[in-house]
């Protein structure tokens, strides 16, 4: 029983650490948006292409955060939930 509790706790801590990727990606995407604003301020007529490029660049750099989210969801829904119900049975 103790072992299962330790595994669940470890996965919870690991999920929290994995979601740091979200914060990092937030910094990166904000930087992209800021640069795009600079570009639009300098050349307002190029707003359309700059916006398209910005959104595609942000979407691609978001992959890291999405992978982290997928890993966390898989951990929680396929590993933790069965373990927790097992733990409750044992209790």
């Amino acid at each position, binding site marked *: 029983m103790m072992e299962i509790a330790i595994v669940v706790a470890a996965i919870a801590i690991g999920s929290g650490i994995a979601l740091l990727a979200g914060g990092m990606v937030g910094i990166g995407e904000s930087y992209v948006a800021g640069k795009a604003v600079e570009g639009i301020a300098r050349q307002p007529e190029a707003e359309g292409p700059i916006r*398209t490029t910005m*959104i*595609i660049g942000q*979407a*691609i750099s*978001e*992959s890291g955060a*999405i*992978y982290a*989210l*997928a890993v966390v*969801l*898989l951990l929680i*829904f*396929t590993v933790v939930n069965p373990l927790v119900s097992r733990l409750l049975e044992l209790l």
Partner: protein
Amino acid sequence: MEPKVLFEIGSISITEPLFFTWLIMAILVIGGYILTRNLQTIPKGMQCLVELAVEGIEKLVSTDLGEEGRPFIPLIFMIAAFVLFSNVYGVLPGAYSPTGDLTTTAALAVLVYVMGSVAAIRKTGFKAWIKGFFEPYWIMFPINIAGEVSQVVSHAFRLYGNVFGGGILLGIVYMLVPYIVPVPLLAWFGVFMGVIQAAVFTMLAVAYIQLKIG
């Protein structure tokens, strides 16, 4: 993470994503039929809106793909309309976004990948397409394969992760405060993020096809 089974026809179980996918397809087909039934040279009413949407997609495709991208316009329009409708549809009470299920988004991503590859084969020939995997040196083959796979996976996971993650967050908020508070969050995750993610998915589909045939 298995989808909920709504009911069964014979031995086929109709799951939630499947049911709502067909529902949205029906809405799109019937809506498309009604909106294009009585076209006029001088548009008025709903025809203006539809023409605006079609022209927007046409502009998006032709700026990236040029004249040879014209055959892709119906496909891209279909993807945009389906993803937009299924993202925003989740706002309705009791409704479910089919894009919040990995199988739907994976199907769309694989569809885009196959279309891009077929267009590349038709343009440059089968040999050149195979040779593309061994560029610039043959030793890069595994890296190229990994690149192709991760392109499809990230295309599918991006939409799925956003919709599903938003749904989980909304579910937690519903559990804590069931009234009033979830409404702005619903507008944010359902409508705003839904529209943005549909635009991103469409733009990435065009960009991936451009990478293949460009």
